[in-house]
């Protein structure tokens, strides 16, 4: 049996060996590649894979919604006269009806929604007996058991990409991973001005503003999520919710 010190020593020798061999093999005058197409060049700007023409936020909301519907998700764009809280309540009622759940109180696994700063939302949800559960430490047994018993999760997003209906979910203070992972139903709250044409546009902006480090490294994990959890392992038949949420519903709203 090796000790930690042993494997550290082993790792150091292995590192040196691997790097030396690589240097040697790659600098060999007889090329390491059989085909020489790019000869090691690379371009500084890559071509976006999907649609990238700048569009109005309203337009992007529609594209995002349609795309999400097409990959087994659903969406609701909050219109004038409607509220975000109203849209959430409507969705929860829908889920309850589908699951034939008659309980009057509903516990929802959630981010700290105060951060989203949506006027009056928390009060309205409270009035309608929606209890938002924000877990503090998932490595604590009780907290974990509680989180895993809840069937609806609500989160915000870092950004949303219209062309593929992808959302970027990061984790950080008040933003947990489990609310978008453990429950069977996930509700996304997406402010209209966080929707980008495609994933390249968002990362492009982060790079320009020097925010890549902050988004990727300080948050420890960034997840790009596109629709509900899927599998086609059994005879290529599409099945939803094999591990993550079975339904993903986006509520898109105009920020005040």
């Amino acid at each position, binding site marked *: 049996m*090796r000790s*930690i010190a042993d*494997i550290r020593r*082993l*790792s*150091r020798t*292995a590192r040196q060996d*691997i*790097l030396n061999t690589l240097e040697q093999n*790659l600098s060999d005058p*007889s*090329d*390491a*590649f*059989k*085909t020489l*197409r*790019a000869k*090691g*060049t*690379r371009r500084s700007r*890559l*071509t976006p*894979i*999907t649609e990238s023409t700048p569009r109005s936020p309203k337009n992007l909301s529609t594209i995002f919604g349609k795309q999400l519907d097409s*990959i087994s998700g659903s969406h609701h764009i909050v219109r004038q006269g409607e509220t975000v809280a109203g849209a959430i309540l409507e969705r929860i009622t829908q889920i309850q009806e589908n699951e034939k759940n008659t309980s009057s109180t509903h516990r929802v696994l959630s981010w700290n929604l105060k951060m989203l700063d949506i006027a009056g939302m928390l009060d309205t949800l409270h009035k309608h007996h929606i209890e938002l559960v924000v*877990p*503090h430490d*998932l*490595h604590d047994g009780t907290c974990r058991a509680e989180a895993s018993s809840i069937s609806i999760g609500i989160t915000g997003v870092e950004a949303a990409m219209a062309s593929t209906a992808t959302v970027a979910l990061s*984790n*950080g203070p008040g933003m*947990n*991973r*489990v609310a978008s*992972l453990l429950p069977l139903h996930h509700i996304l709250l997406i402010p209209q001005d966080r929707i980008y044409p495609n994933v390249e546009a968002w*990362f*492009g902006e982060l*790079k320009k503003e020097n925010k890549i*480090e902050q988004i*990727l*490294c300080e948050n*420890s*994990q*960034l*997840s790009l*999520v596109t629709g509900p*959890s*899927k*599998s086609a*392992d*059994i*005879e290529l*038949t599409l099945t*939803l*919710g*094999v*591990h*993550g*949420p079975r339904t993903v519903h986006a509520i898109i709203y105009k920020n005040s």
Partner: protein
Amino acid sequence: MTINIDAPYKSRIREALSDSGTRKAVDRAMGELAQRRERAVNAIDNETMRTESHEIREHAIRNLPGLLVELETNLTRNGCEVHWARTGNEANDILKTIARTRKIKTAIKSKSMVTEEIHLNTSLEEIGVKVVETDLGEYILQLADEPPSHIVAPVIHKGAEDISELLQNELGMEPTLDPSIMCDAARKELRKHFLSADMGISGCNFAIAETGTICIITNEGNGRMVSSLPPVYVVIAGIEKVVPRVEDAILLWQAATRNATGQDASVYFSMTSGPKKPNHADGPKEVHVILVDNARTNVIKKGYADALMCIRCGACMDVCPVYREIGGHAYGKTAYPGPIGSILTPLMNENINIGKDLPFASSLCGACKDACPVKIDLPKLLLELRNDLSKEKITSPFQRFLVKCFAWISKKPSRYKKATKIAGLTRKFSKESTQVFSKLPGPLNRWTRSRALQKPSNKTFKETWKDSKADFQVLKSPPSQK
């Protein structure tokens, strides 16, 4: 039926060809996957995506040493512990030590080819750690004690009936052929493991050097669970997985998913840079990254660095007429079946006899080359490998003798002329009235055992050319149009 993957090459192939049920299932599934793929790549500027993906991967392989050091520096800065391993055994030793010192009892694992390659499960089980596969397909295979047969759709050789029976026996599921009910049964069982396991293990699709970020692609969400729920998360990454920039990973992610399953984007793309911070509610407390060579440097040394550009999308398998007939298990005891596997398996095994026949299990039709999202010239690599194997005298002496004879004949026009004349005479020995020999005598019958041989023509090509010269004259000078 599952074929014996340890059997010799020829009996594996024969076994696979005689299993018409599996053949049909694999052929149908591959046809469907190939169609989905085609739709997804035709919807975009595929050629540009392929060119750029190729450039990224080639640049990365050419600059591996620098990129690996940059990756290590940034992963360490983010709070990960980076380990290096020359072989699968070293990687397993490191993992076992981590598991033992943290008193790990159960590990959950998301689908990963490199862990298949180094036989990680067996190794952890040796020290009493239970490893649970969490990808639905891999989980089914673990229950059935079978290896995967495709790198993207591992259980594609099994029908719904087989899977249902297995889940009824193992999980006490009610009889059903409905995949969603089967999924539910697996979800319930696996959820318990997700919540209780003390270690998560995954492979790595791309490792971003500039930020120190490990990216994994899943559709089910098991990758996100494995990297989020247990207190210890261990990543096993082949050293070739590194890419320089975030945008490279974003491009390759889309190239991989479009080619693997025909989706615009996979459901989950989890980008982990380090352990949780004290004010985070969840995430692993420790993240270890084990960078594994396991003969990758050797692939470069042998001059096949092209093969390391592979992003494991499985497109070459879906379009390969050979794979579609024989399925993945016929390729033997290897983590990588299909065209790319036929290159990697013989190159990555110390014992060259393992997988030495695989480069010959190809018709060189080129479908894989046209499909490959990083433009690996697979037929060229297969041909080069055949050449190398023959130079190393690994191919059969009889085969080498025949090829030498052919070379001797072809080197001089006079010899070639005589040989074609003699070949034409062989027609006379056949009693068959058809245009083919259906059975050749002596050792030559090996050729006709599974296919007929076209009879040589009575006249050589040159004679035919002479006779029809008049016709060609006409063709040369078409009547002028008025």
